């Protein structure tokens, strides 16, 4: 390792340089993570380590990192260490720092000196101009370290000296909003950590194209990590809030004697543990009904548009219309169902109306994704089949559709995620009693008659509850409804959607395996 390094740069003491860079990046990552946990109340701002509050620790970290960055930049610039820095930082980085400079300059003048909007914007613009031009023409090793280092030092001083502490509040007179330190400090810390990490990563690879690559990689990586962290946090939060209600009165064992009343009971007056079973059944039926309605129609339309219809204005119009339908707000679908379907189904809300409205909502997505999947099936397959004298429909059925199936299923998975959580249409066309005692019994309600329509199903034509609707009912019920009931419902809704995803992903794997086992 050391031999390699020596031969690569031939400069003594390069290890110090590397160590400083790694220290900076490491510090930045730690503050980045702590920033997120603080923002979401996982770490309290009052935590004290070695007599320093958390915010003061942030400050100290930024002081160290900022000093390190500036030292590394200057050391490289004066030739203390041999690096591959470019002559200029470049306008791209300059403009980026200009934006940062505008925000910083403007905010600092407003907060510290109470200057009004016009004044602070002017100051911000001046700072931005200086930052842009200055950074752009500076040598790369200075331009990428010095501004970040100065920002980090400033923030560090503010925190360590206690100018900004837990009780700090910024209350701008011009807008009706108050900014409290427990929100502001983590946010600034996260943003600044990203900058410091970026700069540190560039230093670690000794500037130049290798350095820029490293900086971009680290910044994008941290960003992606942040996204996933937010998602996980959201799920964990719902689980933590909902789990106690879900397990209320639950018994496991002995043996197979498992009972979870929240999942298996309805809401009955005087019952010890009420549950959401009717709503679960309602949601499952709604999704099944919508999928059964949308898949044959959607795939059929996609096959016609891609394989049979002549590509031209007609297909272009259909394509645009389909895309527009997919982005139509769900309340519009709901209104359509309310005005058109409900009067035709006995003038009352019903499961069937809900299934149809949700099916219409799912339809455009099935068409769009199926079209893409069918288009991506290679023409060679079609040629080969045609050359064997097989007609077009048989070719579509036995070659094109099987090859397109994984893509189609992906589309359906995405769509199911959306419709399972849809509230507005259900509110309009399906909802009845929000907390029913009994679940709709679809399978048990089929009646066969000798005269048309031959099949009747009373349960399909009755109102039903559904998980998102129930959640909505809990939230709007106001006083008297227990909040935990809502959290439990939310958790179950999450689980139901994830369950549908699992089914979808399994079938996608199955279809893919069939293609290339």
């Amino acid at each position, binding site marked *: 390792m050391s031999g390699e390094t020596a031969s690569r740069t031939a400069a003594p003491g390069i290890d110090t340089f590397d160590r400083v860079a790694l220290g900076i990046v490491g510090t930045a990552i730690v503050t980045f993570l702590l920033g997120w946990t603080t923002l979401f109340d996982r770490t309290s701002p009052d935590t004290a380590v070695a007599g320093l509050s958390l915010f003061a620790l942030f400050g100290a970290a930024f002081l160290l990192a900022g000093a390190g960055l500036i030292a590394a930049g200057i050391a490289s610039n004066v030739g203390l260490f041999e690096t591959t820095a470019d002559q200029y930082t470049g306008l791209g980085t300059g403009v980026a720092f200009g934006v940062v400079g505008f925000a910083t300059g403007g905010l600092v003048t407003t907060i510290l000196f109470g200057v009004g909007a016009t004044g602070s914007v002017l100051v911000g613009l001046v700072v931005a101009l200086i930052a842009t031009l200055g950074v752009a023409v500076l040598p790369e090793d200075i331009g990428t370290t010095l501004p970040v280092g100065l920002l980090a030092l400033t923030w560090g001083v503010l925190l360590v000296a206690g100018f900004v502490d837990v009780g700090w509040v910024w209350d701008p007179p011009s807008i009706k909003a108050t900014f409290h330190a427990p929100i502001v400090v983590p946010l600034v810390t996260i943003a600044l950590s990203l900058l410091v990490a970026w700069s540190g990563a560039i230093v670690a690879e000794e500037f130049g194209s290798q350095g820029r690559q490293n900086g971009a990689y680290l910044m994008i990586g941290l960003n992606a990590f942040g996204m996933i962290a937010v998602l996980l946090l959201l799920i964990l939060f719902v689980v933590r809030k909902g789990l106690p209600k879900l397990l209320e009165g639950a018994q496991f064992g002995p043996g197979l004697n498992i009972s979870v009343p929240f999942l298996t009971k309805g809401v009955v007056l005087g019952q010890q543990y009420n549950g959401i079973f009717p709503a679960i059944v309602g949601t499952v039926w709604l999704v099944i009904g919508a999928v059964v309605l949308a898949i044959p129609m959607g795939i059929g339309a996609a096959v016609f548009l891609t394989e049979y219809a*002549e*590509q031209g204005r007609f297909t272009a119009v259909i394509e645009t219309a389909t895309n527009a339908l997919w982005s139509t707000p769900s309340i519009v679908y709901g209104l359509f169902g309310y005005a058109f379907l409900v009067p035709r189904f006995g003038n009352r809300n019903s499961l069937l109306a809900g299934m149809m409205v949700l099916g219409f909502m799912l339809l455009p997505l099935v068409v769009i994704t199926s079209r893409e999947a069918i288009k991506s099936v*290679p*023409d*060679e*397959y079609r*040629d*080969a*089949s*045609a*050359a*064997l*004298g*097989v*007609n077009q429909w*048989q070719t579509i059925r*036995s*070659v094109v559709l*099987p*090859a397109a199936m994984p893509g189609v299923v992906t589309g359906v998975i995405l769509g199911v995620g959306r419709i399972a959580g849809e509230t507005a249409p259900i509110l309009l066309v399906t909802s009845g009693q929000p907390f029913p005692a009994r679940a709709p019994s679809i399978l048990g309600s089929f009646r066969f008659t000798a005269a048309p329509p031959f099949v009747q199903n009373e349960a399909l034509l009755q109102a039903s509850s559904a998980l998102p609707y129930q959640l909505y009912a809990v939230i709007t019920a106001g006083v008297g409804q227990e909040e935990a009931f809502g959290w439990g419902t939310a958790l179950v809704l999450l689980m139901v959607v994830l369950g549908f995803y699992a089914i979808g992903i399994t079938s996608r794997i199955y279809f893919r395996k069939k*293609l*290339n*086992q």
Partner: protein
Amino acid sequence: MSDQTVTRTNEEQQSNSLTEQQSNSLTVDAETDERLVDSWTNYEFEGEAAITVEDLDVYYGDDHAIDSISMEIPEQSVTALIGPSGCGKSTYLRCLNRMNDRIDSARVDGTVEIDGENIYEGDTDLVELRKKVGMVFQSPNPFPKSIRQNVSYGPRKHGDVNVGLLGKLLGGDDSEAELQIVERSLKQAALWDEVSDRLEDNALGLSGGQQQRLCIARCLAVDPDVILMDEPASALDPVATAKIEDLIEQLAEEYTVVVVTHNMQQAARISDQTAVFLTGGQLVEYDDTNKIFENPESDRVEDYVTGKFG
């Protein structure tokens, strides 16, 4: 499909510029090459003609891709179609089983008689035609199915073998017959020894050369009379190419094979007679392969086969 047309047009332009270059050099060489001589394309052979083409013209939109070609193709032999890119030889090949119908802008005039019937007459059954005239494409294109399903695809879809649930229910389960067709076709395509123990594996797991032989087997499974091959070995390595070439020569004992190729050595090795397409869509010379390669009538053909242009 429109993409295909566009590519073709580009090739056409390419070939036009080629033609210009070449006619410049030919004014010095020979005056006779300025026009075509009918007798050069009058190929006399013994035996029956499997395919008789008369005055065939093909247009892609305004683009004249095939210019009044007439030729007879003898049965149970290998006929090679050679010529530079964009000269129309693939288009010509695709006329023989009406694959050009799949290109919207293509228009075909003239007659192509197979078994004494003009395939461009109104009531031609495309299914029957393509069962009789099979085709193998430039790049191997097996379906993403098992090897067995690939080979039996044609017979299944034509209802010749009846397998699966319905077959079992109706008592006419043809699984045995299906396996026989698969085995016969794979043996004919010289692939049986390599895949007999893994018929249920996915065809996409085979090597390129094996995939191409599988495509030939798939085409043989519907029991055609004529096999059209559009540069069947151009995407393959030399070893796989050699296997395909051997296979073509074997197939000619039973089938009429028409091969389009860029590779003149390949044409010389495997074919009995060779047709040379030079200027945009014109057949210049058609004769015994030996004659074409050793002593062609046309000077342009001589230049082409000796590698002076193209």
